[in-house]
């Protein structure tokens, strides 16, 4: 797939604190690329650097298919994390203004605005003042404003925050269909379950550093190892002696065994020692959510993996 945006080794410091360290990734045409990470990891900072709202101290951001200097602002749609709309103006007025700023023809913009308002259940609201909209309606209008000019690259910073489940589904569907029509989409989120369902590739960031980067499938096979949860009163030392066990977490009678990457569940289960008390046993893969939580709480669940690769 064609690469639209390359972010190469960017670094950024606020005062003495380095908030971005050596961030490298690319966004391709027709794919959804997700930047994931806990609050304060550097997601919004990365995006703001791409948008030229800040400038990186080092590294380069390249927009392919863009001749000339600077950022091809009228080919990018951007929904910032901190977002809002002018309060005392009509919905259609503000949509047309934002389209005009992007240099998009007004008649086409009007057509698309009406089409999307209808799609997002806001038909007939075009003459309503923004201050009369509910929060969810406002977010829909903001989303429309970011895609009204048919951007080639769409950057969405936390697009789902504050949305109800129905609207979340609506947004997900629309984002997916935009990607299917060839738009390159870069989105950031901390809602793993949503992202897991829709993204093609992901970039996980923690403390301004890359933790994971790759396709969703790769990440799952590479990082989402099996884990085995056993209910029963067992000695932690006994559990740690079992083969393929990387580490054990125990909480009361519940023990979670994190297993090696190359474990084969069938054989491993057969080889379980007799002396272990099993009232209940569950074996499944670590979810992205757990990887995410582990990263956020700084456990080294995948740290070894990262080091091994480095």
């Amino acid at each position: 797939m064609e690469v639209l945006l390359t972010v190469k080794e960017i670094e950024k410091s606020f005062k003495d604190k380095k908030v971005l360290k050596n961030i490298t990734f690319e966004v391709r045409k027709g794919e959804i690329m997700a930047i994931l990470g806990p609050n304060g990891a550097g997601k919004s900072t990365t995006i703001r650097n791409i948008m030229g709202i800040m400038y990186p101290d080092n590294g380069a951001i390249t927009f392919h298919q863009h001749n000339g200097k600077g950022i091809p602002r009228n080919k990018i749609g951007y929904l910032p994390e901190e977002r809002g709309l002018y309060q005392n103006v009509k919905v259609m007025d503000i949509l047309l203004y934002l389209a005009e700023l992007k240099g998009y023809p007004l008649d086409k913009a009007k057509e698309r605005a009406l089409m999307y308002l209808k799609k997002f259940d806001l038909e007939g609201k075009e003459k309503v003042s923004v201050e009369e909209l509910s929060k969810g309606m406002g977010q829909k209008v903001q989303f429309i404003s970011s895609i009204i000019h048919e951007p080639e690259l769409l950057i969405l910073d936390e697009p789902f925050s504050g949305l109800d489940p129905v609207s979340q589904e609506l947004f997900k569907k629309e984002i997916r269909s935009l990607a299917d029509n060839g738009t390159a989409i870069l989105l950031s989120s901390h809602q793993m379950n949503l992202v897991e369902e829709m993204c093609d590739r992901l970039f996980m960031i923690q403390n301004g550093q890359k933790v994971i980067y790759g396709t969703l499938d790769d990440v799952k096979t590479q990082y989402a190892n099996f884990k085995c949860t056993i209910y029963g009163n067992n000695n932690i030392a006994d559990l740690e002696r079992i083969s393929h066990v990387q580490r054990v977490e125990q909480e009361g009678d519940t023990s979670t065994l994190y297993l090696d990457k190359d474990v084969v569940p069938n054989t491993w289960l057969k080889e379980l020692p007799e002396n272990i008390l099993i009232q209940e046993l569950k074996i499944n893969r670590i979810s992205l959510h757990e990887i995410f939580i582990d990263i956020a709480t700084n456990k080294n669940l995948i740290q070894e993996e990262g080091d091994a690769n480095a």
Partner: protein
Amino acid sequence: MRNSMKVAKWEIKRNMKNKTFLIGLFLTPIIIVAFMFLGTIFGDDSENEVIPTDIYVNDQLNLLSDLQNTVNQAGYNWNIQPTDISEAEVEDVLDGTENTAYLYINEQSLQSGNVPVFLSEEIDSFFMNQVQILATPLKSFQMQQLDLSNEELAIISSQITFEDTKVEESADDLEEQGSDLPATLSRLIPGIFAGFIMLSIVFTGMAIFQSASQEKKDKIAEIILSSLTPGELMQGKIIGYFALGIIQTVVSIIILLPVIAWRMDIPIMEYLFVPELALFIFIAVLGYLLFASIFVGIGATMADVSTAGNFQGFVMMLPFATFIFIGPVLSDPSGLWAQIGSYIPFTSPGVLILRLTVLEQWPWIEIIISLAILIVSILLFMKLAGKIFKVGILLYGKNATPGEIWKWIKA
């Protein structure tokens, strides 16, 4: 620049659709008109409209019909009659009359160039301006009479003025020179006009504050900045509010001018469009640019107008600093305070307009130095405002401290 114009257009459109702005737009001139009428309701010169002014001319040169023609042409509501009352008796005759004037036209007054005018206590306040019109027939009479000797040429080139000699002062003030009124008007009217333009665009410009901090409050700045640069956004706002200020001025003038023209018999248009006006307007525009750049920068540091800190409040007061200088400048337009005022960028537009309006001889060197300081300050403040704006506009929900602002400027 194209993007700036889009922002400017948007700001204009947004305000023109805003009820508060529209009400203010029309209310300002209407309030001014209302105050003018209030003055006439309580004043007593409303009768002037009806009662003609009686002009008695002690004419020893047979010029009465010429004078009558001139007055008819000017369309003044005057009743010109001949009289034999001498200057010595006139005080007694005038005592207790209203709207009456006595002119003494004789060889002596033509020679000296001063025509004594005796006025009743109650008379149209513009009478002394209007009576200057009679200078023309007198001048032409002088020309006819003279063979062109050197001495006579000197007389021709000297002006005839009508001397205000109110009854009470007649004894000692006979020799006082009449002022050069049309020349004064030709400075005064453009000066007042420019002052009005500046006030109205600077006040409209204060809305830039609102506009910049509102952008933060509504959290739309980052969306806007994904389409253009902070510099373009700032420029757009400055241009947009300038246009709004001009709209305000035009609306005010359209409403005010007919009223002024009706209430006062001054040919305003004639005095308004003089070369001086260009300089006055130039100064007014510079004044706007200075304050607009300061306002837009400071507006970007505030989360909300109502939460303005001391520092922001102080900056908002800057345009009013000019008022400190009004007293000293009027009492001595070339004095030390006037000069200081013209060299401080925040007060120089106002003080300059005020001084140039009052002064007969323009101090060109001071004007040039003052304009140079003003222009350099504008460039400087625009640059600073740009830096502050760039960071401040994205600092949502928080007021910036002077310390932080200083850091942004240094960055």
